[in-house]
């Protein structure tokens, strides 16, 4: 069977990926530059028996998506800067109640209304710390349209597998650029569904973890009649005042990611084997980095790329390994230095780290990376 190849926008690839992953519910509120995700979901979902609803604000969009997931539907919401801020409280709710949901943030320049149509990577730390309290985070970051398709599917799979909110951190460039996407046959796409209980209603403990630390999840309406609360709760799902239970719960939520890190973490490397200099870049900046590497190598400067695909959890071990073999890491980012904090924390002892930051709403160009590297050599 011939593969479908289509020219599409990143935001469209996100919706195609979501539908391929089994999305049946979308709730959100329009905001540039993510709006196409809502528009396309509104068009496509009812055609496949799914549901779309435009809520009164992003808080409600987040809440409705979580509610829908509780009945068993795979659900998503998408937003940008100001809307991402509004969603934070309920992202924490999904984390503590362990309800799978995918949140897309097509990053634009902030703070506040900032530059609505300009790209940014300003929300990378918000992805990690945006909601209050200690909590698990999975955040993925695509750097092409095709990868947006793939990572949206992966976001749903991870959300279902680990019962938690998963963040897809796009940016305005990736959201609006057009590229060819080869859409695989449905049979070639790996789809993961949450594990549901098969035991009797009496035996079901909604928050008793399996070996991978993830509890089984029953759909509301399937006959298990359990309680879900954002308060600290025990295995039965009911609130508890026990300090021991609080400690165990918060640690398990975070450990859920920690012990399954190998399954979750992914990154891309290019020309790192012989590299004297490594460019640490993600999202649309990684594209400029690739061009810069090509041009610098033509000049005989050995440069490689390390591109985290899972921003959280961060691919720590591999980056540390590489930093021991390299003279310098340069970290271009469309923010004033967010992920570089991780790079510095992990690699300071082993190599020199240089920042390259831009917050004027423009992308980072290959020439700027080249100039930076040539300047520090």
């Amino acid at each position, binding site marked *: 069977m011939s593969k479908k190849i289509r020219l599409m926008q990143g935001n469209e690839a996100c919706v195609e990926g979501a539908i391929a992953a089994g999305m049946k519910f979308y709730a959100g509120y329009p905001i540039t530059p993510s709006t196409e995700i809502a528009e396309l979901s509104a068009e496509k979902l009812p055609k496949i028996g799914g549901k779309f609803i435009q809520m009164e604000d992003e808080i409600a969009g987040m809440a409705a998506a979580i*509610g829908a997931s509780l009945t068993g539907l795979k659900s998503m919401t998408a937003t940008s800067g100001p809307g991402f801020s509004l969603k934070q409280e309920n992202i924490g709710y999904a984390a503590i109640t362990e309800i799978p949901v995918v949140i897309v943030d097509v990053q634009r320049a902030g703070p506040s209304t900032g530059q609505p149509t300009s790209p940014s990577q300003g929300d990378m730390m918000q992805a990690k710390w945006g909601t209050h309290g200690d909590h698990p985070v999975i955040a993925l970051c695509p750097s092409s349209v095709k990868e947006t398709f793939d990572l949206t599917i992966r976001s749903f799979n991870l959300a279902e597998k680990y019962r938690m909110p998963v963040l897809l951190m796009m940016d305005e460039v990736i959201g609006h650029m057009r590229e060819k996407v080869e859409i695989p046959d449905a049979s070639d796409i790996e789809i993961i569904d949450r594990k549901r209980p098969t035991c009797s209603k009496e035996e079901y403990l909604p928050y008793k973890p399996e070996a991978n630390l993830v509890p089984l999840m029953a759909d509301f*309406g399937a006959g298990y009649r*359990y309680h879900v609360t954002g308060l600290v709760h025990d295995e039965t799902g009911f609130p508890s005042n026990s300090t021991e239970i609080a400690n165990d719960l918060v640690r398990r939520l975070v450990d859920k990611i920690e012990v399954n890190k190998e399954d979750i973490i992914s990154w891309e490397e290019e020309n790192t084997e012989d590299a004297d200099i490594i460019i640490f870049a993600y999202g649309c900046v990684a594209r400029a980095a690739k061009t810069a590497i090509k041009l610098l190598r033509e000049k005989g400067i050995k440069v490689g790329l390390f591109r985290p695909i899972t921003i959280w959890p961060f691919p720590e071990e591999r980056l540390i390994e590489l930093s021991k073999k390299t003279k310098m890491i340069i970290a271009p980012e469309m923010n004033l230095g967010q992920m570089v904090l991780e790079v510095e924390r992990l690699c300071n002892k082993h190599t020199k780290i240089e920042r390259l930051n831009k917050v004027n709403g423009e992308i980072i160009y290959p020439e700027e990376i080249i100039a930076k590297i040539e300047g520090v050599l």
Partner: protein
Amino acid sequence: MPSQLVDQYFRADKLPQIWCPGCGHGIITRAITVAIEQLGLDPDKVCVVSGIGCSSRAPGYLDFNTLHTTHGRALAFATGIKLANPELKVIVIMGDGDATAIGGNHFIHTCRRNIDLTAIIFNNNIYGMTGGQYSPLTPKFDKGTTAPYGNIDRTFDICDLAAAAGATYVGRGTSYHANVVTSLVKKGIMNEGFSLIEAISGCPTYYGRKNKKGGPVDMMQWQKDNAVTVTAAEKMTPEQLEGKFLIGEFKNKPEPEYTKEYQNIINNLQGRDV
């Protein structure tokens, strides 16, 4: 065993509730379960959603699919549940602050959408859970911990607000008139659309104490003395109605329901495309 009602619809092992002695919330919670019993709803298909507050603790005691969400957001969560699975009967329990302050925007938009949810607001005229701060339902000049010199905010009339925003079934009862609450909730659940029932509750611990309204019994007595049924009010003069409040059914005007309308879109598209 506890009474048959409690046995059947409550999680009796979680009782008694955390609420203070004489808190009206327990009475209203029971009145809701009586409505569910009288309608013979399948508990597996009933979902009770709440926000945050004393009132919002109610679902934890009820043996259905129960969801205790975030402050003010219960209706938004419930909207997701209902649209995702219209087979479920979704009941929403909120406090007056929960529903009309932080959740005010969700409240008016849920009314407007006319999605088939039945919401019950436990109105005790105060923020109970956080210790007695004034709410959008604290009467003018009454006191709260954040209104030590008397509240100068004007209040909402929850039922007028709901009706104006488009709720298709609206009524008011009190904890004293628990049977009225039951019959309104019953009709609210039967209404295919958004139903809003305001249940006047008493918070003796904070509202009562701060405003010298006496204890639980005095607060119930006040409800008894000042509530006037809609039918009785028709025969009363404005002077006689001074200082009184109305209870009963205020609006019952069915209109097309949201999840049904959405299903029509799906059916039309699938009829055409498939």
